[in-house]
């Protein structure tokens, strides 16, 4: 383990705000993240087109257009810097050369804009975690892992500046837990399985980044866990209180990337980022209202309160009245960042942060656990424990307490069925075994067909 986090890097509310991280990173074309300004991170994807060899030229045309348009808009707006995120689609990870080709294409646009216009920039590359193609997932060997590893290698060689992934180790059990409301399965996935996969995977990613002195291991996200819960809650399929507690608990597995050498910025869809920032001091990317092109968000403003990169999650390259969607969102993000940066320059960053917080905080359980105060409380609970399992429990119990206190104080309104679920979550979390062995044994008995112990280095236990 490279970093042990037993104390908070940011322990005071006044230090936890957007644009500033105790450990800023420098990457790409003279870009600094977390060094005083919030910067836009533009995330994009293809329209409905099958990614295959027959369509490859069309695919390249799209990314070429995206790169050209986004950079032009950033230059026109005199953005102080920009990050482009290239999320590889599954087919591009399965054929690593494809992902590398697009990486190189986008990097060329950034390089040209830097040379011609002085635009500071960086390219984040995020291969798809394709290791769960088989059930149960085989995470540490086999063709999917080899292709994923190769994707990282080739994208680094092609010029990727920041390496990220939305890793899925543990998701096979977590999805079951969400669907059946089984807190034990959720806690086992987040606190026992996922941290083990994160540790192994991020050792590999950090090693891949080391092959190029210009590449940094950025960070991961609990997207497949907490954002799945968030979107299911939005569709009224899951309780919001459950999604909120899952969000807090998911910070523990995302933290493991930093324990193994990730430097930030974490992925934009890691809404647990503020907890990571409070613990590690590393910069984070966040998304909120700006991600409305991709999905609904109950944390549209509050999500920006502590960000260092402000992202739009993902937008298709389709034509709008003002131009193509990625360039339109470049503009939207840049203006958002401008406002936050002007507030900061005038010494009003904390005021702006608090306005963003207050506008959302008590309108959704998921926002309630994202406030700066809640962030510090959850982060402190995490570092007070010594292993990922106990940290996960502590985060969940703290989040549930925050929701209960908010509701009791008349701040957070909860529908009867949400209240019922909060009580259930509290009871189940307080009744969990204090050590992971008992929970893992129970999950092996009940849902052992879902996960392969070898994928987590647990075979023989």
């Amino acid at each position, binding site marked *: 383990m490279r970093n042990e986090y037993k104390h908070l890097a940011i322990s005071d509310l006044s230090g936890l705000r957007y644009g500033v991280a105790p450990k800023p990173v420098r990457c790409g074309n003279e870009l600094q993240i977390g060094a005083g300004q919030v910067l836009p991170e533009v995330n994009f994807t*293809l329209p409905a*087109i099958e990614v295959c060899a027959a369509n490859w030229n069309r695919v390249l045309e799209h990314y070429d257009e995206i790169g050209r348009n986004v950079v032009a808009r950033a230059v026109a707006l005199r953005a102080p810097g920009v990050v482009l995120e290239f999320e590889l689609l*599954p087919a591009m990870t399965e054929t690593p050369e494809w992902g590398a080709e697009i990486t190189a294409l986008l990097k060329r646009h950034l390089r040209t804009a830097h040379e011609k216009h002085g635009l500071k920039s960086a390219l984040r590359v995020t291969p798809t975690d394709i290791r769960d193609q088989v059930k149960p997932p085989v995470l540490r060997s086999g063709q999917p892992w080899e292709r994923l590893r190769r994707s990282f290698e080739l994208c680094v060689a092609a010029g990727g500046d920041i390496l990220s992934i939305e890793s899925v180790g543990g998701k096979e059990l977590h999805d079951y837990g969400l669907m*059946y*409301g089984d807190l034990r399965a959720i806690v086992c996935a987040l606190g026992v399985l996922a941290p083990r996969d994160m540790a192994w995977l991020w050792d590999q990613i950090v090693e891949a980044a080391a092959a190029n002195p210009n590449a940094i291991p950025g960070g991961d996200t609990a997207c497949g866990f907490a954002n799945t819960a968030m979107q299911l809650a939005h569709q009224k399929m899951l309780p919001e209180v459950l999604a909120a507690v899952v969000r807090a608990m998911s910070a523990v597995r995302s933290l493991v990337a930093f324990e193994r050498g990730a430097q930030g910025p974490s992925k934009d869809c890691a809404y647990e980022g503020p907890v990571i920032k409070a613990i590690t001091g590393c910069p984070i990317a966040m998304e909120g209202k700006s991600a409305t092109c991709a999905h609904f968000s109950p944390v549209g403003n509050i999500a920006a309160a502590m960000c260092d990169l402000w992202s739009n999650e993902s937008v298709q390259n389709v034509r709008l009245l003002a131009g193509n969607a990625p360039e339109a969102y470049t503009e939207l993000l840049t203006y958002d960042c401008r406002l936050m940066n002007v507030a900061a320059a005038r010494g009003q960053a904390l005021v702006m942060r608090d306005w963003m917080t207050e506008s959302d905080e008590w309108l959704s359980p998921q926002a309630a656990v994202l406030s700066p105060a809640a962030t510090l409380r959850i982060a402190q609970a995490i570092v007070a424990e010594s292993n990922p399992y106990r940290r996960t429990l502590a985060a969940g119990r703290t989040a549930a307490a925050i929701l209960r206190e908010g509701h009791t104080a008349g701040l957070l309104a909860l529908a009867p069925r949400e209240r019922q679920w909060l009580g259930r979550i509290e009871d189940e979390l307080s009744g969990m075994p204090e050590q992971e062995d008992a929970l893992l044994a129970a999950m092996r008995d009940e849902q052992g067909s879902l996960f392969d112990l070898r994928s987590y280095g647990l075979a023989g236990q």
Partner: protein
Amino acid sequence: MSQSEPLLEAILNGDAKAAAALAGAALESGMDPLELVTKLMIPAMDEVGRLFECEEYFVPELLLSGRAMRAALEVVRPRLVAAGAQPMGRVVIGTVKGDLHDIGKNLVSSMLEGGGFEVHDLGADVPPERFIDAIREHKADIVALSALLTVTMPAMKTTIEALRQAGVPDNVKVMVGGAPVTQQFANEIGADGYSDNATSAVALARRLMGGRTT
């Protein structure tokens, strides 16, 4: 029907053990297995679906009820087979090639089972050939395609075209769903039906069966 109310409650409450025990007791008391399924158990799941639509149940309650339904069906099934009863229909379901998302598909699968269908779940990232093989192997009446990414939606069209080219007859109906999918898209690609949620998927499947069983 002395066991009807407790069995209904067991399914509504997601109590699999109780549902299985009560189904067994109902059969022992002489209840006709087909009546038990069609007049009590399936309506119980329909009520679960209604409670979900009314936002009284979340997915966990819905799936736990589905599990209770399946537990009761396991007890009843041998009697149904012996009586020559057939499922409502046979469904092959999967997420299309290139797409790894499966939560929505799993939900639909569970609801279809609760609705009396025999479901063969192929998982995610399923190429057209596997759908074709499964349709033939299981003599499917319906094939249900799921996609969650706009870039994988075209694979739905590819799959449907492959089905027709492979000679899968028109009476094997195709239904599609998934977050980016729309009725318009379903029409464009020649699907027989589209549903935007798990409970309406059951209603759609029943409509596609047109009142016949498999």
